[in-house]
């Protein structure tokens, strides 16, 4: 939470909003923000949750899973395969079924 106060204080002194409608020059200087940590986002408890925590949170928050409408086993399989094969998530072959079963159980139809 402290980081947020620092970020907001920094923003107000950095000159966001320098240009006016009459001044169409490009911006100058540095803008610094601090994005919120998503450490407090977490997956639902359940068999296989450690696998999800280990391999999914590297690249995205758990909300990427929890906002979904509830997906079938086939749909979760496709998502896990996409993460592994397209995005390069280092999910070991022998962990794929654990992950799919967890997702389809806790975030299924």
């Amino acid at each position, binding site marked *: *939470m402290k980081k947020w106060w620092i970020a907001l204080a920094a923003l107000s002194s950095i000159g966001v909003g320098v240009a006016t409608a009459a001044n*169409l020059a*490009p911006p100058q200087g540095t803008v610094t923000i601090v994005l919120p940590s998503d450490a407090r986002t977490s997956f639902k408890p359940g068999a296989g949750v450690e696998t999800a925590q280990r391999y999914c949170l590297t690249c995205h928050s758990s909300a990427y899973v929890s906002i979904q409408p509830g997906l079938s086993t086939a749909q979760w399989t496709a998502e896990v395969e996409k993460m592994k094969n397209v995005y390069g998530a280092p999910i070991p072959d022998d962990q794929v079924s654990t992950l799919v079963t967890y997702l389809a159980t806790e975030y299924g139809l």
Partner: protein
Amino acid sequence: MVAAGAALGGISLATAADAQTVVDLPFVNGQRPLTAFPQKRPLLQVTPRPPQLETPFAIFDDGVFTPNDAFFVRWHLAGIPQSVDASMHRIKVTGAVQRELLLSLDDLATMRTIEITAVNQCSGNSRGFFAPRVAGGQWGNGAMGNARWTGVRLRDILTRAGLQSNAKQVQFRGLDGPVLPETPAFKKALDVDVARGDDVIVAYLMNGQPMPLLNGFPVRLIVPGWYATYWVKMLAEITVLDHVDDNFWMKTAYRIPDTPAANIAPGTTGFATIPINKLNVRSFVTNIADGATISAGSTSLRGIAFDGGNGVRRVEISIDGGRTWRNAILEQDYGKYSFRRWNARWDARPGAYDVAVRASSNDGVMQKATPIWNPGGYMRNSIETYRVTVS
């Protein structure tokens, strides 16, 4: 937490795990905590990392321009620079060009300045309303916004670099990157003819101000009339290609069925696809929400309409679920790519009504009642209907 935020001029410092206001979008798993990210007022947090933030729909009733601090946010990859020095920023122009360029914002300032008002809408805006539902970013209707963009023509930059005769597409990349080196970096491409259009600009101002970092500070690509996926933020590389871009974000992602209106029956396989491109026509009521109760008497309906650059010809409203229609009044025209505000007087008598709105664009296309469907959840634009009780 919200009270503490209010003391700071209304900026809530709350994060998702705090007790705070949650907006319930009307679909399964549609709970969205209102969360203030840096340079942003509280917005609907779809995901915190990478950040995907939706504009609360009531904002669209406030005016034709969407405020910068309320503008939606969508990043694909979590490697987002959190500190950007505009003075040091460079745009590299390379590939099938006569001369490579390394442009500073000061260089852009020496070029002809262009201002254009345009809607920026996510390809997947309204995906949460697809039936059957599809996987992806589960947006309500607020993954869109309208702003006045200031910058220089991409064409002027390309002319300065000089295209080689074999130039086929122009590819764009920003400062953002993936967490894992194995993940495809986010890159998008336009055909040379599109890239050289009058209205495609490299913008450094948004509504007359430097854009929020989360909207692409210090400079982003503006492709009026085209979906936001092409509006590359923190633009850092322009690469002229002698071939059709085959990177993941063009070849595999953001593809729509090559069918009329990008519509296809659920479960269909083996169909041809093309890259998503121009916006279709849409309209919304902005001053009355679905399920609202209003007082009887003379009232006004207000809203917005837009399309992919033909301009809005007509907006019609219905109070009987689309059986009968009458014209709304179109308000000031800010250009063919802008939101067009409209209004209509309604002498509302007690009862239950299905208020609907539909727009037609200048190319003769009118919104339809039946929604389209495609597996990506792209381009929803069916007629919006609002249940209203008059008491």
